[in-house]
């Protein structure tokens, strides 16, 4: 076979993948489409925030609590920053932080979970499982509060601590899913072949536990900013003047009781994204579980 032929084949394979992805997308129900479109808009806002936002993230552009107007679409906040601009920057910070946190928690929890599944019943599995049990039985918020007091209220510390606490759930899921995969004949076949642990893990197990993990990823991702929001409420979340939706709700929470809509915008932003992610995840799970709906 010539190199050229190889290339063509690769292109063909790639095109095939894109095509099949498109075919799959076409079957997506309305709710999944809605979810994907919303997520796309959010991601767009996050990436291009400085170009979209009419004002700066922490720029004081007017008086406090101006109502919405042509100049300030959603009005201004307690010290005269444009809420619309902060919402857009908030997308960047919120999604960015949540994404890093979730990725980290999946890296930690996923790796250890698969490892524990392979060595099911072994001492490592026992130790990890006990430790995870212990961590899960400590109230997350309060524990996070303590750890933040120990390590300081830096965004890096926040991300690390949330990722660690979140990874316990990922660990459980990864372990449970991987246990079902580890007993499959193709894993046994690889072991009989004499394959090493690393190869079996990466090539045989990981690709097959991805669907539930990806679904969980979407959900945990949404919960990260709810947790951050609760931490902000308790005074240890993301520190001002960084715009992050959770903190924005917490900062302006007292306005709710005056019927002022300011805290509604970031809350709605969170809720909309969560619902969107859930729509997509539901569809994804539905697809991968092979469950059919009645027509």
């Amino acid at each position: 076979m010539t190199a050229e032929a190889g290339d063509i084949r690769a292109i063909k394979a790639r095109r095939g993948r894109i095509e099949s992805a498109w075919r799959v997308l076409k079957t997506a129900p309305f709710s999944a489409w809605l979810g994907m479109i919303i997520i796309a808009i959010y991601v767009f806002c996050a990436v291009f925030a400085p170009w979209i936002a009419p004002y700066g993230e922490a720029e004081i552009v007017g008086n406090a609590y101006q109502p919405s107007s042509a100049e300030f679409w959603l009005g201004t906040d307690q010290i005269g920053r444009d809420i619309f601009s902060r919402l857009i920057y908030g997308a960047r910070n919120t999604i960015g932080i949540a994404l890093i946190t979730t990725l980290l928690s999946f890296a930690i929890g996923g790796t250890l979970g698969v490892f524990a599944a392979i060595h099911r019943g072994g001492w490592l599995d026992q130790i990890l499982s006990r430790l995870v049990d212990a961590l899960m039985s400590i109230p997350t918020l309060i524990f996070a509060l303590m750890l933040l007091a120990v390590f300081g209220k830096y965004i890096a510390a926040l991300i690390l601590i949330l990722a660690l606490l979140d990874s316990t759930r990922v660990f459980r899921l990864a372990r449970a899913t991987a246990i079902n995969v580890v007993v499959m004949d193709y894993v046994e076949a690889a072991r009989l072949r004499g394959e090493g642990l690393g190869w079996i893990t990466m090539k045989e197990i990981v690709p097959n536990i991805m669907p539930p993990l990806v679904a969980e990823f979407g959900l945990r991702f949404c919960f990260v900013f709810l947790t951050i929001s609760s931490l902000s409420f308790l005074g240890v979340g993301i520190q001002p003047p960084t715009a992050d939706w959770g903190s924005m709700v917490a900062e302006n929470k007292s306005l709710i009781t005056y019927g002022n809509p300011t805290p509604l915008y970031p809350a709605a932003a969170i809720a909309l994204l969560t619902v969107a992610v859930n729509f997509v995840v539901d569809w994804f799970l539905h697809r991968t579980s092979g469950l059919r709906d009645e027509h």
Partner: protein
Amino acid sequence: MHPIVRTVLQRLGLGLLTLFIVSIVIFSALEMLPGGFAEAILGQSATPETVAAFNKEIGLDRPAIVRYVEWIGGILQGDFGTSYAGAGGNIKRHVSDLIAPRLYNTFFLAIMAAVIAVPLALTLGVLAALYRNSLFDRIVNSVTLTTIALPEFFVAYVLMFFFAIKLRWFYSLSTVSESTTFLEHISRAALPAITLTLVIIAHMMRMTRAAIINLLASPYIEMAQLKGIPRRRVIVHHALPNAWAPIVTVVAFNLAYLVVGVVVVEVVFVYPGIGQMMVDAVSSRDMPVVQACALIFAATYILLNLSADIISIITNPRLLHPR
């Protein structure tokens, strides 16, 4: 040995081990916290002498390991120790005395929320499964999703705005004390309970729906349909009994949340529960209280999970009646 007994014993053993790990984790975290009880309580006005006097009195001048061993020794004899807050006076404040009324309040609220949320979630879940993909299903799904997608305190404040300030149906303050009557306690705790209901209902409802729908592809469900069993009975009588395990697990998880995760709601409604107490104790470095709270939380979590396991066994004839 019957599998239930075996499982219970095994889980209890593991639970004790977990409690032990929790106590070590919490103790280490507290040791790492900057500042001590004296500094926390005296704030800016701490002088080295008063701090030293405090530390001597509560025994903080001794090595951490000695304190831990003594503390755990006390626990094994059922003595949770005395709060540092009693230091300075000649009246000791036993941790158990401090915690007991708070614990009662926490359980009161948790049970109240559970009594509303669990039956509601299960009913909605079953109905959503029964009429899946209908308008009802979609609306219930979206509404419950939205409630969990909003920060807890946001939900709490919105409820407070409408029900306490605008309509004046409920109290905005949920301060209760030992002298509060049962009925007043209920009306005081109404808004927090509703908030918590909204927070946990989605998870349970969605799991009920998913667990049932998951089973609808089972051959015995098709069999039941082919036996001419009405749809409602198929769901309730054939699918639901087999869906208990995952549902109960999620319910247990959420009930645990009602006990251990409500600090935000407690703060918003000024409800004197144990979560706030633990947060206070953390910030004042009142080690014995923090430790006791953590152990109570962990024990609740473990016991609820254990109950879930037991219910899973009871509802599964394969495990209840082994061959």
